[in-house]
Structure formats: structure tokens, C-alpha cells
């Protein structure tokens, strides 16, 4: 996983609440057995019309948002299924940061496993960014270490991410590798459980 320490990028807005993972990546695209190549299907039913042509009304299709790497969205982003194809698609499309007033639990967690940082800001701050992101070329800079977001023109905010996850992001750590360092503790736990008779 690529470490994420500091990131500057163009901001796209998706002013909708409760965006579910079925929307982020419709299920007909879940059938691949690889992790890559999902970006082309991101928000498929919104980005494309039924005949396959581009839907110019959908926010992300507006030319000013092409190449954006920071997404600002409404509350409860990523609700629904546990499919990790959702963060894979966002990442593959180019997003590394998602800012929203709240996220669904499983999605939030899945983001970190893929080097995407979900940032929770207040509703007022998100509303503010929604406004600002209307201007073409609006950019933000995110500092993962100091947990700040700024646009370099006076707009500054802070966020918090628990230390464990922040550390994984900063170092781009392989979580399984980390866990395997606790192999002795796991083995000990298993021994204890099984000798106690495995009721619990």
C-alpha cells in the first residue's frame, strides 16, 4: 500500500446524502477476481446513461472535476454493502481523500485498508467546501501527520483519525504483517480457549 503523508489535489463535489455502495459500484461490476480496474465503473449508473453515453448532468462528469483526487460528499457516505470494490473503484478513479460529515462503518474501515483517507468534518465545514468546490480548480491540501485540511487561501480545518489507522496510512503498512508479529499471543489464546473447553 502506498503511504499517504501529505496530499494536495483538486476537489470534486457530490452533494448527496446516503450515497450507498451500490451506487459507488453497481453489483454487475463485482464479478472480477482482481482488485484493479474498477475505476471505469465508479458511479456507473450516474455517470453513464442507459445507452452507455456520458451523462453530462452528473457532477463528476463536469469538465472542471476531471483529475480530482479529493471528493466532498454528504452524510452517511458509503452505506450499504461491505464490498471493498467501492474503495477500489474510488482509488482507481483517482480519489485518495474523501471528506464528509459522516461515513458508514464498514466503508470507513475499508478505506484505510486501501490507502484512502476518509475525513469527517462538521456539516457546516462540508457545506462550506461544497460551495468552494463550485469554483473550477479549487484545491485542498491534507496533512495526515498534523491532521489538517487547508486550501492555502485561509480556509483551514482539523480532523482526527485514530492513531493506529493514521500510522498504517503514514507508513503504508501491511496490516497482516503487523498482526503476524503477535503470532505467539494468538497461539497462546487458541491454546487457552481450547483447553478451557471451547464453550466460549
Amino acid at each position, binding site marked *: 500500500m502506498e503511504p499517504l503523508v501529505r496530499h494536495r489535489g483538486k476537489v470534486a463535489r457530490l452533494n448527496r446524502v446516503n450515497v450507498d455502495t451500490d451506487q459507488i459500484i453497481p453489483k454487475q461490476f463485482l464479478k472480477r477476481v482482481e482488485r484493479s480496474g474498477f475505476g471505469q465503473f465508479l458511479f456507473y449508473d450516474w455517470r453513464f446513461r442507459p445507452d452507455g453515453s456520458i451523462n453530462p448532468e452528473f457532477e463528476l462528469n463536469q469538465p472542471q472535476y476531471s483529475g480530482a483526487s479529493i471528493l466532498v460528499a454528504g452524510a452517511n457516505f458509503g452505506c450499504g454493502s461491505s*464490498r471493498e*470494490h467501492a474503495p477500489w473503484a474510488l482509488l482507481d478513479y483517482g480519489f485518495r481523500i474523501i471528506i464528509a460529515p459522516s461515513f458508514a462503518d*464498514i466503508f470507513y*474501515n*475499508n478505506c484505510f485498508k*486501501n490507502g484512502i483517507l476518509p475525513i469527517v468534518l462538521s456539516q457546516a465545514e462540508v457545506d462550506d467546501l461544497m460551495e468552494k468546490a463550485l469554483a473550477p480548480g479549487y484545491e485542498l491540501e491534507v496533512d495526515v501527520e498534523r491532521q489538517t485540511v487547508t486550501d492555502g487561501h485561509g480556509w483551514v480545518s482539523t480532523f482526527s483519525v485514530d492513531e493506529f489507522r493514521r500510522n498504517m496510512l503514514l507508513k503504508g503498512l501491511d496490516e497482516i504483517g503487523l498482526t503476524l508479529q*503477535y503470532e505467539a*499471543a494468538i497461539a497462546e489464546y487458541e491454546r487457552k480457549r481450547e483447553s478451557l473447553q471451547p464453550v*466460549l
Partner: protein
Amino acid sequence: MPSSRGNTKMPKTLFEKIWDAHVVTQPDGGPALLYIDLHLVHEVTSPQAFEGLRLTGRSVRRPDRTFATMDHNVPTDNPFDVKDPIAAKQITTLAENCREFGIPLAGLDSPDQGIVHVIGPELGLTLPGKTVVCGDSHTSTHGAFGALAFGIGTSEVEHVLATQCLWQKRPQTLQLDLQGTRAPGVTAKDVILGVIAQHGVSFGTGYVIEFTGPVVRAMSMEERMTLCNMVIEGGARAGLVGPDETTFAYVRGRRYAPADSEFDRYVEAWKALNTDEGATYDRVIQFDVSDLEPQVTWGTNPAMCVGVNGTVPDPSQYDNEVERKAVEQALQYMGLKPGTPIQDIEIHHVFIGSCTNSRIEDLRVAAEVVRDRKVAPGVRALVVPGSKRVKEQAEAEGLHEVFKSAGFEWRESGCSMCLAMNPDTVPAGERCASTSNRNFEGRQGRGARTHLVSPAMAAAAAIAGRFVDVRKLMTSYQTS
């Protein structure tokens, strides 16, 4: 037993007892390394995880605590005729992965095959006090047994395969106390839809929900599974019901359940799992079911829901602009006008199935409504049992004949029309009364319009060709 092993006498909730018993280590006050007792695997969210193991030369730590099946992609008219080459690839990939890593698999030809959340309980894999995970958000279903069960992403699937553990931040607890008496014809599905309609699609975010109160105590295991299945639609990763005699009676004698000779010893331990007198939750919600009607969703998330005698809402009644816009968008997608009575909405498809409502009891209730009646002209109606065993049982009871003679299609087990990943889909612009759990845009097919209901309500809709209050159709309900 953790409750007596702990050196303090602090009263604990069911959740706390299970959690505490599974913490392997918790370095520096960070997340806990939680031990996983049961890992269920299916074909859609696992291939990248196994690939990850291969790339890093890792193996599966406990194949004996892992169990796989195929459900999402399976064609329910003929499971062996997978026409979509990519679906076929996922199915064969799972079979190969299970062979390579020594994982037991209920494959397409196994009598154990079925929807992952139906077969776990059915086989006695799901037991009180266990931690259960699966790469699927409806893993919450298993919480009905007093197991801590939650959905995970594919990276975590790989992590559990390799280590049998997960790093987890301790969630908060929410007590959902169900009080009152359900009116006849009001099912567990209506209760959970009613709760979500009132509290929204994210009230449970960050919480494990424990259902308490006389309503849940009186519920069967099937009903409790329906409740817990849908807590994720309220944002909670896990739901719990304290184990009791209903639980033990369901579990006893199942293949992977403790043998009869030791069963009583287990029951004693399971009873002690229940929340102690005086234990507290981070949040408490009281919900009275007494006035609840059978529910029907009108929009594009499960909270957009109203009683069957209600009407489609008017966006102009919402003060909050974002909410108003969401309702407008939903009505546009659903092709509905504000103020339309729910019972005027005509449907073209009926789906009775999914991990929410495809168990034997669901099929019995639906069959009771359908018996000696006919599916309305122009309606396509499907019954898809949740597992091969459910199908067998239903056939032994003659339910398939009831459905078939009414004009329903009687299918093989699988996820089917719950999500458009197999040939069972709803065409764009058409309306489906569905017993599944999600009515998101496109869930049953691009442009498909899903209305979530109970099995009884779906059956009634099939007969009437529109939504009706099932209570008017059921003589047994009228007299009881």
C-alpha cells in the same frame, strides 16, 4: 467463562462479555486484536483475498474455523448453467481456492449450499458467544443467536484467513427495547422497517444493537434473524439477541452444534452470556410496536418507509433542504407522485427470498396467504428458498405446490433477485415487491424500483397486483 473469570464483579452486557472473551491483545490502548471463531466465505468478496495470500506466500491459519459457500452469482433456475463467464469464473475460483487452502465448501452440488447467512445457522456453525465474520454486510444476521457477527471488507477477509484475528475498535452499545404487542399480521420485517423509518439509516452507526424486551423474547429464531439481518440498514454493523430456550431449541441437534451429551453444559454457559442486571448501554431506544402496521418502502433507502395504509410523502413537507432533495430524487427514481395511497401502487414483480426472508417460516407465512389464490395477471412472482435444505423442507410440507399452482416460480436457492448479480433481475422502470433488505437505486437491476415488504405482504401483493393490507386477506389473522 469470561463473566466469572473476570476479577471484577462489574455487571456486563452481552456484547461486553463476548468482546472481552475474544481480545487476544490490545497494545497501547489502540484497537483490540479480536479472535474470530467462525469465518464464512462466499464467491464475490473472497477472490482478491486468496490472491493476496498467494502473492505473499501466506496460508489459511484455521481452515477448520472457515466455511465457504456460493450464493450471490448462482442462477436459481439452473445453478449448474452459469452463462455469464465472469460469474462462472468467480464460482470456479472459489472452488479452487477452497481446495488449495483446505477450506470446507458447500458448493453447487452440496446439499448444504445456500445463502451464507441461511446456512451458517442451519448447520449449527453459528452459536451463541461466538465471533462470526463474513465479507458481507448482512453477517449481522447471526447476531440473532447471541453471537457477535459483523460484515468485513475483502482486505479483512484476507486478514482473517491469514491470522484468524481482526484489529477492531470497540464499538458502543445500543439497547433497542421492543415493547408492546404486535398486531396480527405485523412481522419482524415490519418491526425493523418501522424502527429504521423512525430513526433513519444511520442511527446505529458505531453501535452494536442489542434487542431486548417482550417482543423479541416472543420471536422465533427466524424472526430474530430478520431483525438482526437489517440492523446494518440502520447503520449498525451488528445486532444481538440474548440466547434463551428458543435459541437452544433451534441449535440442538444441528451438525456442528455441540453433541447431545455435552449440550446441557453449553446451555449453562450460553445462559450466562445474557446481559447482567445493572449493566448499562451507551444509548437506549424504546420502540413500541403496538401501533405498527405492515410496512412498505416507497423510496430508495430502507428508512423511506410507511405503513400500508399510508401515502407517498410530499417533499414540500420536509424543512431540511438536503432531505427534501433526497425525497424528490427518490420519488423521481421510483416514479411515484406525492400523496399516492400505498395501496394504489401497482407492481409487476414479486420476490420472496434473500437472507432476510427466505427461511422455512417465511415461506410458510407466504404460502398461507397464497393458498387457493392466483397471482394477478401480468405479475411475475418468484419464490427462492434460502438454502437447499429450506427448499427440501418446504417441498416436504407441500409449500412448493401451493406456490406453483398459484402461478409462482419455484426456484433453487441463492441470493437471486436481492441483487442484480445473477440472471434474476427487475427490468428498468418496473416495480417489485421484495422481501429483501435494500431498495437502493439499481439494487435489483438498473432502473428497477424496489419496495421492501414482509413475505406475507409480498404474497398479498402478488395476488392483488398492487399493495394491499395483508390482514384483509388472511382469515386466520382476522379471527386471531
